[in-house]
């Protein structure tokens, strides 16, 4: 009994806020020092990388990052090359999702239907990009950024179709029995088929390296950082206590990715789609409650898209922010979706490509627009749009809270679960890239997993700055290698598409419903 009392006394000492208060100054300073040194480290050692990825040229009074142009141009080229597939074949994609081309009697054990694959991929895509990303885009790009997000979402559908088709076509069965696919495999194998194995290998290795960095950055540190930012906004938790958020998240991530416990992964898979439903439901309530302002909000979006009023760099500034955040959200052209989609059980790679093209539409055109409407209706994002006021997840949360105070709590719940599930997804992408470079093996895999968990703590602890720039840059850098390969391999996709369409028309591929 005495022992229990002693333990309780120690815990009281450890957690009491008076104890914190006494040490608060020191703790704050320590965390600030860590944050500054980590930020400085990233600035010193990765500044050249960030600068290189976001190399800009002056355009219309703004600095236009070439990488944004690279993604936009690619999406436009794929759209034209595949004959505006996102518009002309949307019906076919919906029919595939509905299971009209699936034989109801031939479902193998453990097979994942296209609808299940879409909902899984969507629950992985709908996340902080739709919440924090839109907040950041509108804070710097004004309401007009929404229009460019929609444009990017529509064009990005073609990029996603191309990469996901290739992801399935060139997937590989590893010695462990794991199905592995994604840009690393289609770049190396696709180029090798055409006698350019060396170039393919270079692109694949480049992509894998960037994917690992992206998994540590945007897929991890950014998520942890924004999860704590949401707690700070909703509950006034001091930002320096991010280390606690980080340790708790890291422990849970560790148990999933290192432990391989079957149940937690299943729980996450079940909970996250409901979080997406919760988020969309909240957005619909806000829009419904302010239905009279929706017209004005759309006017602000369209006017802002072309005038760029109040935005640094005018309409080009709005365009840059819209395109950047849309890409961050729907990941079209980045290559990560191809890794996720490659595990689906299908005989026709094109069917998975067609299903995947619906993702940017739902993610960006529908859900990001809903978030943008909520922010624009709330009116908290006023000119000049320089990001000095509310931004990121806090702008979105504050906008939701304008309608009902309870939304900030629900949003906090959704943000934390989205952040957690995104970290799990990106740990998978990163691990795939890691095993591609270093081979399969329990020790090499453990090194990546432990590093990944360390970055969760770092992400939640440090403040915005060089680390977040690095997170952004690493994800965008993946598209440099991926898109270069997609240009070269797009005839393969077109051949698959034409063959599939011809067999659908000839009746060789039957419609069952």
């Amino acid at each position: 009994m005495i022992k229990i009392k002693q333990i309780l006394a120690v815990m009281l000492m450890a957690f009491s806020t008076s104890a914190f208060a006494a040490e608060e100054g020191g703790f704050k300073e320590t965390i600030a020092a860590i944050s500054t040194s980590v930020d400085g480290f990233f600035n010193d050692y990765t500044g050249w990388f960030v600068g290189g990825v976001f190399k800009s040229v002056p355009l219309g009074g703004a600095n236009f990052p070439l990488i944004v142009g690279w993604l936009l141009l690619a999406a436009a080229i794929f759209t034209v090359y595949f004959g505006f597939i996102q518009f002309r074949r949307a019906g076919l994609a919906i029919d595939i999702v509905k299971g009209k081309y699936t034989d109801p009697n031939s479902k193998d054990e453990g097979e994942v239907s296209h609808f299940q694959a879409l909902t899984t991929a969507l629950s992985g895509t709908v996340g902080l990009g739709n919440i924090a990303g839109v907040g950041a885009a509108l804070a710097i790009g004004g309401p007009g950024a929404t229009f460019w997000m929609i444009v990017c979402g529509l064009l990005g559908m073609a990029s996603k179709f191309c990469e996901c088709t290739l992801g399935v076509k060139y997937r590989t069965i590893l010695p462990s029995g794991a199905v592995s696919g994604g840009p690393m495999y289609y770049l190396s194998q696709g180029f090798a088929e055409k006698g350019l194995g060396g170039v393919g290998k270079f692109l694949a290795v480049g992509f894998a390296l960037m994917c690992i960095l992206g998994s540590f950055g945007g897929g991890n540190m950014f998520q942890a950082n924004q999860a704590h930012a949401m707690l700070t906004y909703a509950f006034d938790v001091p930002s320096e206590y991010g280390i606690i958020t980080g340790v708790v998240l890291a422990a849970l991530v560790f148990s999933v990715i290192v432990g391989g416990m079957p149940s937690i992964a299943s729980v996450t898979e079940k909970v996250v789609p409901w979080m997406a439903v919760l988020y969309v439901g909240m957005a619909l309530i806000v829009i419904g409650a302010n239905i009279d302002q929706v017209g004005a909000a759309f006017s602000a979006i369209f006017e802002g898209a072309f005038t760029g009023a109040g935005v640094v760099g005018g309409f080009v500034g709005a365009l840059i922010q819209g395109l950047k955040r849309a890409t961050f959200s729907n990941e079209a052209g980045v290559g990560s979706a191809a890794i996720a989609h490659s595990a689906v059980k299908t005989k026709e790679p094109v069917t998975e490509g067609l299903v995947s093209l619906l993702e940017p539409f739902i993610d960006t055109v529908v859900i990001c627009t809903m978030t943008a409407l909520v922010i624009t209706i709330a009116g908290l994002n006023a000119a000049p749009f320089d990001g000095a006021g509310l931004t990121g997840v806090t702008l979105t949360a504050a906008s939701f809270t304008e309608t009902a105070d309870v939304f900030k709590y629900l949003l906090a719940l959704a943000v934390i679960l989205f952040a957690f599930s995104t970290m799990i997804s990106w740990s998978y992408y990163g691990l795939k890239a890691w095993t591609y470079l270093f081979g399969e093996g329990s020790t090499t895999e453990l090194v990546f997993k432990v590093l990944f968990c360390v970055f969760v703590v770092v992400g939640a602890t440090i403040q915005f700055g060089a680390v977040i720039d690095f997170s952004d840059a690493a994800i965008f850098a993946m598209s440099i290698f991926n898109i270069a390969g997609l240009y070269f391999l797009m005839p393969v996709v077109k051949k698959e598409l034409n063959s599939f369409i011809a067999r659908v028309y000839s009746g060789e591929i039957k419609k069952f419903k």
Partner: protein
Amino acid sequence: MREIKNFQIDLKRTLMQDGPKFLSHILVVKNHIAYIKPTISSMLFCVVYIVVGSFLITLASFIYIESQKMDLALFLGGFGIAITTFGISLIQPFLKRASFSKQSNLFNNKKDRNVKLTHIVSLQVNNKIVKRKQALSYHCFELNMLTKNGRRINILNHNDFLQLHGDAQALARFLDIPLLDLRREIIL
């Protein structure tokens, strides 16, 4: 006249869809009893949830006591309770020790109906690939038993084949029944 149907039990079929990616249990044989014991590592992964959940509950209590922040306390406490409950639900199956007692002539896994040891016909080793939507798929193995009544019961389920095979041989010797290695080629 009633039609007599011939049926055969598919012993190659696995009984569990899922399974851990680590050595979760081992077999211990002592005199007249053989029992399944959870490994330390498997317990540790469950304890992570209980520790994290308890920490959040404790933190929530102190925040409420010290600063009266009801909303934060409820939020953290709710998360803590959910995570702790999850951890407890995970650890429970590990605490139930399945045993084969020659003294009582019974197999008891604290879940299914007890089976007389003399009713156990054979042991089978099966294999499967556990697929994850957001993680690497992996091999997993099962040790299952077949009873005289045609019932199949899972005894071990983890991904350390060498350990499982060794345990299966020891159990087959203990029960004096045949062990069938029914691993099959899995085409993905």
